[in-house]
């Protein structure tokens, strides 16, 4: 990592309660004020290179190994990208609905995981609370019913994944041109069995996130808040669609920057910028350039950018949420939590619709047709818009793979959020306080970054803090167990 000789550098590593490993460096100017904060993602996965030469039908199964938390997003996104390679641009109703069920199950479990296990300690205890209790174990002790609901909601989503993909993690359900199994009536009934609880608990979780946000609105709306563009896919009528749609981007005032852009043309509109200090790219909208073209993705982006939600309860919740912005999109980072729970409710509403759809029991699983040599899949993953792009040679071997994962799109926003928070809590002293470390982690967590694969440790990750003077010498170093 480069050392900036003209400023003091403060390092916080690793960031806890985000998936994977991260490190934050805070760069002070000579006056001791925060000049810039950087989130370093020590992640180099190499998938885009090492799957070259592999046959394309391996992609849905291979590339999902990027992640242990939302592999289904990669599984489905890769499947969408390779569908054209067997001539399967339009799937059978059964295949499309089984995939959608799998995807909504994934959303439900991922959002439940984030909300109950990772975010709720901050929300329930306040993010300046003692780290020894501000963790999922603390939630389980103090709010056992809530913790139980979190676990069971996650389990429910995982059961949907098991039934549709064959395994709870790293399944094989989606294949080029369709799926390899339908949902039997017995499997459907198993899922319908616990459904009412899930719907009720999703409403409760939403109201918890909503109440927390409204109760703390004054402080939250100042915390990690900045204007940005937003990007997501939407259905052709502008409705929220997590599985399929076309690209839409809005500016900080909510005006359309573009809409209904074919996924195949994503490179006409999005550029992946690079910076020397990070392995992670910094995507931006081509029309606006790197300085103002960066954008946010994920729950906040989707709720801000969609025209409406096509399930009644989530739509009512969206309207109430959007009122916060007074006609503009909602910009503060902590609003992600509320938006995320609107989506969890939407996911369970969609799951209910799908479970009552007899197409799930159909046996027309796959289509084939004239084969293409290139495909782009775009999907809304729990953490935001996800792009998979493959090209194959005449022998069916992958020659090009380009992935833009959600956390990458949120790279610049997370850096901005950390900078904003660091400015607020650094008191002009070149020291790292407990409060600052907490605040930095809390704002990163709002974005639910998946920093690499699932190496999350409950409450036992050490926090290393290093302090450098303006010549790059370490002047202080603290190690402690955090949560």
């Amino acid at each position, binding site marked *: 990592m480069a050392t900036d000789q003209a400023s003091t550098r403060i390092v916080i590593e690793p960031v806890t309660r985000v998936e994977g490993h991260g490190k934050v460096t805070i760069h002070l100017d000579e006056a001791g004020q925060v000049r810039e904060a950087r989130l370093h993602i020590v992640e180099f996965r190499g998938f885009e290179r090492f799957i070259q*030469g*592999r*046959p394309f*039908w*391996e992609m*849905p*199964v*291979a590339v999902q*190994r990027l992640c242990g938390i939302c592999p289904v997003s990669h599984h489905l996104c890769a499947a969408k990208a390779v569908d054209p390679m*067997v001539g399967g641009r339009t799937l059978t109703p059964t295949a499309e609905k089984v995939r959608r069920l799998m995807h909504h199950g994934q959303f439900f479990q991922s959002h439940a995981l984030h909300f109950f296990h990772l975010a709720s300690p901050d929300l329930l205890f306040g993010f300046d609370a003692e780290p020894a209790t501000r963790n999922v174990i603390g939630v389980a002790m103090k709010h056992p019913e809530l913790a139980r609901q979190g676990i069971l909601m996650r389990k429910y989503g995982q059961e949907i994944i098991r039934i549709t*993909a*064959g*395994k709870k993690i*790293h*399944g*094989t*359900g989606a*294949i*080029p041109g369709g799926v*390899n*199994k339908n949902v039997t009536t017995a499997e459907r009934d198993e899922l319908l069995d616990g459904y009412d609880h899930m719907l009720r608990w999703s409403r409760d979780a939403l109201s918890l996130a909503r109440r927390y946000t409204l109760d703390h609105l004054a402080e939250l709306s100042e915390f990690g808040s900045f204007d940005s563009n937003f990007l997501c896919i939407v259905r052709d009528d502008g409705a929220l669609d997590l599985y399929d749609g076309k690209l839409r981007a809005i500016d900080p005032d909510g005006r359309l920057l573009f809409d209904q852009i074919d996924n195949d043309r994503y490179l006409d509109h999005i550029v992946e910028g690079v910076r020397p200090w990070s392995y992670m790219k910094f995507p931006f909208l081509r029309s606006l350039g790197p300085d103002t073209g960066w954008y946010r993705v994920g729950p906040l982006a989707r709720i801000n950018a969609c025209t409406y939600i096509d399930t009644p309860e989530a739509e009512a919740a969206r309207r109430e949420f959007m009122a916060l912005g007074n006609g503009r999109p909602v910009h503060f980072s902590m609003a992600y939590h509320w938006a995320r729970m609107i989506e969890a409710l939407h996911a369970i509403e969609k799951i209910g619709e799908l479970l009552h759809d007899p197409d799930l029991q159909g046996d027309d699983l*796959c289509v084939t047709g004239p084969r293409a040599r290139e495909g782009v899949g775009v999907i809304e993953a729990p953490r935001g818009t996800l792009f998979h792009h493959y090209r194959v040679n005449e*022998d*069916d*071997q992958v020659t090009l793979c380009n992935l833009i994962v959600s956390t990458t799109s949120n790279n610049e926003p997370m850096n901005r959020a950390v900078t904003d928070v660091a400015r607020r809590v650094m008191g002009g002293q070149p020291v790292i306080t407990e409060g600052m470390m907490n605040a930095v982690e809390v704002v990163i967590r709002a974005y639910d970054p998946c920093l690499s694969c699932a190496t999350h440790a409950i409450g036992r990750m050490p926090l290393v803090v290093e302090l450098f003077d303006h010549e790059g010498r370490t002047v202080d170093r603290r190690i402690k167990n955090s949560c």
Partner: protein
Amino acid sequence: MPDTFTFLMDGRSVVATAGQSILEAAEAGGIYVPRLCHKPGLVPWGACRICTVRMNDRPCAACTQPAVPGSVVENDTEELRAYRRTLVEMLFVEGNHFCMLCEKSGNCELQALAYRLGVTAPRAPYFFQARDIDASHPDIILDRNRCIQCARCIRTSKDLDGKNVFGFLGRGTAKRIGVNARVRLRDTEVDLTDLSLDACPVGALLRKREGFRVPVGDRLYDLEPIGSDIERNSP
């Protein structure tokens, strides 16, 4: 030698006919002898040594060794299981076997055998050999990364398909499965209906675009260990 006779295997009496191998006789009696290069219908080859048993205290390959009247054979002992585990581990480190990405997963004899024998992680270092893929044929792919050199495709193509599409090239760790053409699989006489395509115990020789069509749960070894079908015939 009488037409039929018996020998003892792990304390059980097994009936054999003259000329039958230990493996075949055991199988007929409902006893599974682990194997990889053996495939019914092919001339025994004796290459992989997974089927190693002790006959009258002497190690031998059960697939090539004819049964002997009154002999005493050890098969499922800890000593032999340990040998077999080591052999399977050596196959895993020699090739590039990434089960998690492989479409043969769940239907793969090597993987299933590793599970049955309790192989967790190989103790020897991986070779990480550079092996190439021949995807030139429009409908068939040969992925040498996963080849265990059992010669089942070679023998099937020659003896059952009457074609001679495959053959070995090189020796030792450089040994590779080759194709009977100047350069590529597409220039051979191989055909989608060839029996050789179904002879591969691993994911080296495959029909294209069929991967992952069988859902998890319905695959050959999802529900019970390899060899269970044989053991079900146990009297």
